[in-house]
């Protein structure tokens, strides 16, 4: 017979699991967009705006209150309604207090002080916070382990996948090195959006390639199945031709300018 496990506040925090997603995203958004406004010295002659400091601190305390409530209530049987109310309160109190912080120190949000990189990071932080707040929290359901006959491999792991994906991920990260010395904030944000999108698309292309290496070779197309076994499928060259034509047009334009 197993002894009841001793729980501490630290272990409770570590076991918050999915319920902590909102809090982590909120702390990130607070650290990037609210804390610099509340604790920075933006006033004339480097004076600190103490009202903004108070509201920024209250916004952080709203998140802390949410964590403490989760820790205290999550193990209780009939606390589901109270937990939902607490999450709603965390969302609105944190957003409202952050908004008040920005309103009382609007100077801190001017393009002179808010760099493009921090602007994009803050935008991502608030998007993550909004997404984590809107999605329902899914708690893992403890269930006894099932004993099965054995594991049958669904596919063969080919060599070099980790290296290949690692190289493509490094290239996608390398795209982020472009455009950090741009003077115009709008163009800086545009370049960040372009490089982020390009990185995601590159990883998607790499994923397609890796999945194709492990995928089934059976062709679901009936016409392809009727083909004689020795013959190869024709390559879809339409997009390749379009690519070649596009590159040729660019070269022609560059040469004539």
């Amino acid at each position, binding site marked *: 017979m197993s002894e009841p496990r001793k729980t501490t506040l630290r272990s409770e925090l570590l076991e918050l699991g999915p319920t902590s997603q909102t809090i982590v995203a909120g702390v990130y958004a607070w650290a990037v967009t609210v804390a610099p406004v509340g604790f920075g010295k933006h006033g004339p002659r480097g004076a600190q705006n103490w009202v903004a400091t108070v509201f920024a601190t209250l916004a952080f305390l709203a998140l802390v209150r949410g964590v403490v409530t989760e820790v205290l209530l999550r193990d209780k049987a009939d606390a589901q309604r109270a937990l939902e109310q607490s999450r709603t309160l965390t969302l609105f109190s944190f957003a409202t207090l952050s908004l008040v912080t920005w309103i009382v120190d609007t100077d801190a949000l001017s393009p002179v002080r808010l760099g493009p990189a921090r602007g994009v990071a803050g935008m991502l932080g608030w998007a993550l916070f909004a997404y984590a707040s809107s999605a329902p929290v899914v708690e893992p359901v403890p269930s006894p382990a099932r004993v099965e006959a054995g594991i049958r491999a669904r596919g063969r792991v080919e060599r070099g996948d980790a290296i290949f994906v690692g190289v493509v991920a490094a290239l996608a990260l390398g795209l982020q090195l472009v*455009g950090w010395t741009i003077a115009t904030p709008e163009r800086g944000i*545009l370049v960040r959006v372009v*490089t982020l999108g390009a990185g995601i698309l590159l990883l998607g*292309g790499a994923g397609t390639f890796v999945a*194709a290496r492990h995928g089934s*070779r059976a*062709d679901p197309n009936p016409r392809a199945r009727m083909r004689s076994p020795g013959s*190869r*499928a024709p*390559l879809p060259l339409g997009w390749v031709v379009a690519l070649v034509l596009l590159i040729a047009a660019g070269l022609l334009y560059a040469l004539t300018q």
Partner: protein
Amino acid sequence: MFRRTVLPLAMLAVVFGAFAAGAWAMADGNDLAGLYFLAVALVGLRAQTKLTAAVSA
């Protein structure tokens, strides 16, 4: 080997080069070149996806 590995990888290399050139051109303020390279990258990515699907079937 060529159809299943080299061709898709070469296309992916073209896509990466076009994305990098597009981002570089946009950072330099050259919007026309930036859009051109992004178009090349997107068409290249589509070609790579189609080729990969075709050669793995």
